[in-house]
């Protein structure tokens, strides 16, 4: 009898030990699983809808507000609003001067990065925003991302943009910033990367480039306020640099006119959208050809608020 009782006591003690080991192990595992990684971006982007328009970064899950984290994370079971797999969204750690005229007839815009060496030789590198080539815009010093808007009827969508920096040193750079919204076309819901990236913009008029504060200039620009600055600076407004025998401002290979719909603070920024899912591609960059262009924005976080509403 005594032996039986002892045996039972042993079995009970071993069972309690096993139970406590299981609970402790799973709790400790859960404790490790609690830690989440957070992406820290150089740009804080907020996209909001003012009329219940729904957006997506992946054509599957729809919401009325998105942040830069949604575009830099890939959609998964824990990243419901993340970008579609194999996307070409680009959020560089540093924005550097680039230039684009936003020509989008049958193609995505091309961006140029230019520099002058000690001998005065101008060199430039081209970033082609074409998913199918190796010279894609991923890796360039400008922001680019795909955004999808879902509508039930034909609508004219209007958008607006607020830009500011969180530290004063780079505030002047705002005067040379550009935001472009390229209306690309209709895609299916829950589309994959191949279908999403196969369509291209059709007309230049489907692209709107917005220049913030285009008639206000920084002191070091040497240009009076009230004179509009565009992607192609006027020769009389800029200090000149010699490139061989040519002044840089007349080096036409590096400068183009704005080749899309151009918008300022006072002009409406709109595009027409059909029922269904419309893909737009958004670019945000520091325009190197702007007389207000400062050197790269480093060490500051730029805040960009994009809002969309229906006219």
């Amino acid at each position, binding site marked *: 009898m005594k032996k039986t009782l002892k045996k039972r006591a042993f079995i009970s003690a071993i069972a309690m030990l096993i139970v406590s080991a299981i609970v402790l192990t799973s709790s400790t595992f859960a404790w490790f699983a609690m830690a989440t990684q957070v992406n820290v971006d150089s740009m804080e982007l907020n996209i909001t809808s003012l009329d219940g328009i729904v957006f997506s970064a992946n054509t599957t899950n729809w*919401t009325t507000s998105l942040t830069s984290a949604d575009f830099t994370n890939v959609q998964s079971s824990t990243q419901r609003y993340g970008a579609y797999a194999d996307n070409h969204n680009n959020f560089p750690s540093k924005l550097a001067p680039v230039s684009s005229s936003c020509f989008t007839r049958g193609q995505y815009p091309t961006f140029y990065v230019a520099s002058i060496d000690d001998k005065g030789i101008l060199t430039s590198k081209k970033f082609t925003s074409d998913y199918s080539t190796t010279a894609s815009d991923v890796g360039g010093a400008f922001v680019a991302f795909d955004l999808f808007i879902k509508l*039930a009827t034909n609508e004219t969508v209007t958008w607006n943009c607020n830009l500011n920096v969180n530290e004063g040193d780079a505030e002047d750079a705002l005067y040379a910033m550009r935001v472009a919204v390229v209306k690309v076309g209709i895609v299916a819901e829950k589309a994959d990367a191949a279908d999403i990236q196969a369509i291209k913009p059709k007309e230049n008029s489907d692209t709107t480039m917005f220049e913030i504060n285009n008639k206000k200039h920084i002191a070091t620009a040497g240009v009076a306020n009230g004179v509009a600055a565009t992607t192609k600076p006027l020769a009389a407004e800029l200090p000149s640099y010699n490139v061989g025998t040519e002044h840089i401002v007349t080096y036409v290979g590096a400068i183009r006119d704005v080749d899309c719909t151009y918008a300022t603070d006072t002009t409406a920024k709109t595009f027409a959208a059909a029922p269904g899912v419309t893909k737009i591609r958004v670019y945000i960059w520091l325009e190197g050809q702007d007389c207000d262009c400062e050197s790269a924005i480093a060490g500051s976080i730029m805040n960009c608020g994009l809002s969309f509403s229906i006219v």
Partner: protein
Amino acid sequence: MENKGKSILGVISDILLIIIIIIAISITVMTFTSKNSDLGIGNVLGYTPFAVQSNSMDSGEKSGFAEGDLIITKEVKNVNDLKIGDVVTYSAVLANNEGKTVRGYNTHRIYDIRYTPNGTIQSFITMGDAVGVEDTIEIAPDDVLAKQINSGIDENGNKMNGMKIVNFGTALEFLQSRTGFMVCIIVPLALFFIWQIYKLIAMFLEAKAEDIDEETKRKAIEEYLAKQAEQKSGDAETK
């Protein structure tokens, strides 16, 4: 008296241990289900508690709730079942303490529902009971995660009292934090595990000591009986 005290202490510690184990299992289940959930929120049998972070729903009425409270919600499987007056938890972009905008959860009451021309829900317009003004950003159907149990408007037009536990939100938040979970769950469980090992070893040693004791006693008895037998036979020879 001492034994009585020990047994009361034993009962209290057993009860505390059971509570800790239940909480540990619940939080562990919630952590694992959140990792596999499409919505990123954990649940136990479909129910999710949320700790309230602000007073936007504290209108002073019983139907509201305040910062630090715990509300009990159930996952919304079909947004078409939602009605004006329901209190829903949804994914939203909010400003954190450092002024950065991050994705989080917010809980407000449905004030109105916007429909598309073909009759499907386009968005929900929400409002905090204490705010009194509609929220600027409307909520997409995909953003809605859960509904507070028993919330809504009754047939008389009065707000119903949704399920909540007053002031328990702060405690649960602490328990769900890495520090709180470590201090209140993992450390006691680890101590209990070590205590169980100690008890098992002590039982084993005690049983072994008892066996040795039994063996010694048995040998002593055998020797005594053998001596007795020897003496008896010696006496018989002498006679």
